[in-house]
C-alpha cells in the first residue's frame, strides 16, 4: 500500500496510547512516551505565530516531565479533574534531522469533579518522533493550542 507511510500506524497508535495514558490518569507513565533528551512545550497559536520563546509549560528533559507529574501528585493544590482527548489523523511531514515530523489535531474536553464538562483546549501537536525503536518515541512535542486563554489552570498535561 504505497500511499501509506510505514510509520503511520505506529505513530497513530502511539498518539492514541498517549491520549489514553493521560485520560486514564496514568500520568506516571506519561514521560515514558518521550526520549530521555526531549523537548515538550505548550504554547498558543498566537505565541507560535509571534515567535515567543516562553511557554505555558516548558521541559527540555524527561526529568522535567517527571517533575510535572510528581508536582501534581505531591505538591500542587487543584480540584480533581480529568481530560478526554480526541485526536485527528497524524499528518506525516517528512524526516527532520532528529526524526520524523508529524502534525496531529486535537480536541480536549475537561471534566471537573462535579461533572461539569467543557471544551477545554483545541489545537495541534507539532511532533518529531524517533522511529528507530520498537515503538516511536517523542523527541519533540510542541503543543500549539488554538487559544491563548486557559480556564482557571492547566494542571494535567495535554
Amino acid at each position: 500500500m504505497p500511499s501509506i507511510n510505514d510509520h503511520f500506524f505506529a505513530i497513530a497508535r502511539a498518539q492514541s496510547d498517549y491520549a489514553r495514558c493521560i485520560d486514564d490518569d496514568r500520568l506516571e507513565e506519561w514521560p515514558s512516551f518521550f526520549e530521555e533528551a526531549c523537548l515538550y512545550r505548550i504554547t498558543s497559536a498566537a505565541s507560535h505565530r509571534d515567535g515567543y520563546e516562553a511557554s505555558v509549560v516548558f521541559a527540555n528533559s524527561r526529568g522535567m516531565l517527571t517533575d510535572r507529574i510528581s508536582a501534581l501528585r505531591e505538591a500542587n493544590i487543584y480540584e480533581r479533574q480529568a481530560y478526554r482527548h480526541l485526536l485527528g489523523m497524524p499528518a506525516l511531514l517528512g524526516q527532520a534531522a532528529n526524526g520524523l515530523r508529524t502534525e496531529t489535531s486535537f480536541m480536549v474536553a475537561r471534566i471537573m469533579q462535579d461533572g461539569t464538562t467543557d471544551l477545554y483546549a483545541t489545537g495541534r501537536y507539532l511532533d518529531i518522533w524517533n522511529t528507530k525503536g520498537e515503538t516511536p518515541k517523542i523527541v519533540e512535542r510542541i503543543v500549539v493550542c488554538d487559544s491563548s486563554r486557559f480556564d482557571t489552570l492547566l494542571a494535567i498535561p495535554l
Partner: protein
Amino acid sequence: MSQQAELERTVEGMPNWPGDGLTRVPYWVFQRDDVYAREQEAIFQGPVWHYLCLEADIAEGGDFVTTFVGDAPVVVTRDSEGAIHAFENRCAHRGALICLDAKGKGKKDFACVYHAWTYDLTGKLTGVAFQKGVKGKGGMPPEFKISEHGPRRLKITALHGLVFGSFSADAPDFKSWLGPEIEPKIGRVLAGRKPVVLGRYTQVLPNNWKLYVENVKDSYHASILHLFFTTFELNRLSQKGAIVVDETGGHHISYSAIDRKTNTASADYAQQKIRSDSKYRLADPSLLQGFDEFNDDVTLQILSVFPTFVLQQIQNSIAIRQVVPRGPDRTDLHWTLLGFETDTPEQRLTRLKQANLIGPAGFISMEDGCVGGFVQRGVRAASREQAILQMGGSTAESSESRVTEASIRGFWKAWRAHTGI
C-alpha cells in the same frame, strides 16, 4: 436621573459595611451587580491610573494595541512624533469598535468599518463619510462639528517602559499617585534595560477580580498554599523580607531575600504542622537554578499598583499581570512574560525554565488561579457573612513581617475611598 443622583442611589442600595472597615470584608462585595457597576464608574472610569501596555508593544510610530480598562475597550497608539495616545475603542457615531485587531503596525488612521468615520492616531475624529452628502443631498447638518465629537480619550503616562492611562482628567500626577516607595522598586526590575516580550497568555479566573487582587497582596498565603516556595526555599517567611504598603493602601510590595544567617524557619514551620513543608525534591533541579540578576539577594518581589497592575519578580521570572474584570464572578488575568535584550542565552533559557512557575500551568500560579474560585463558591450562600482580615493587626501599614494581611487591608482602604462603599 443625573449621574450623581444615580451614583448615590447605587451606593445607598447596598447593605452597610460591617466592623471597623478594614478587618472585616462582607462577601456581598464579590457578588452584587451594583457593586460591580459602582467599581466600573468610580475606579475604572474614575481618577485612577490603569496599566495599558508596554512601551515596547508600540515601539514605533503607527503601532497600536487594543486592551481593556475595566469593561471599556481601549486602543493605545504611538503617533509619528513618538507620542503615546489612548482612547475608548468606541466609534463616536453609533458605538462600533473602532479597531478590531489585537495589535498592528504602520497605522496612519482608523476607519470604523460601519460607516467609515475616521480617527487619527490620537483618537481625534477626522472624517465623517458623506458628511456633505452626495450631489448635495443628505449628509450631516451644518451645526454638526466634527471637532465636538470623538471617543473618550485617556490621560497617558509612562514609567520605566510601562504605559498607564486614565479616563478621568482628575487623575493625580502619576508620581504622586505611586508615592515615594513604589517607583524605585518598579525601577529596580525594569529601569535602564530594554524588555523583550517572551510570552503572553490569559488565565480566566472563575471569581471576582478583587479576590485575585487580595491573593496578590496576600503574603500570608504564599508559604502555605504554595509548596514550591517553601520546599525549594524560594521564599521563607523567616527569610529577610518585608511588606511595603503605600500611604493610600492601594499599592504594595512584598519581597524576600536570602537570609545568609542560619535558617530557623523549619522549626517555625514544624510548629504549624503545615502540609506545605514536604520532603519533595525535583528530578531536574535545573528548573530552579537562577542567576543573581539584581545583586541584592532578593529572590522574590511582588509589586502591585492599585487597582489591577502587578509586576512580578520570582527569581529570574519577570512578568506583568493585568487584571481585567469580566463580571462579578469572572476575571481575565493577562500575563506578559519578560526578558531583556541583555540576556545571555543561558540567562534566557533560565527564564524559559522558570516560566514553569507562573501562569495557568505554573507550579505556583496555578494555585492562585483556582483558590479565588474556591472562595467565590465557598461564600455563595454567605453574602451576609464576612472575611476576617486581622493577621498582623488592623492597620494598613508596612511591616517587616509578612505574616500579615496589612496590604490586603490597604487594598480595601483604597477601594472604599474610591467607591464610597
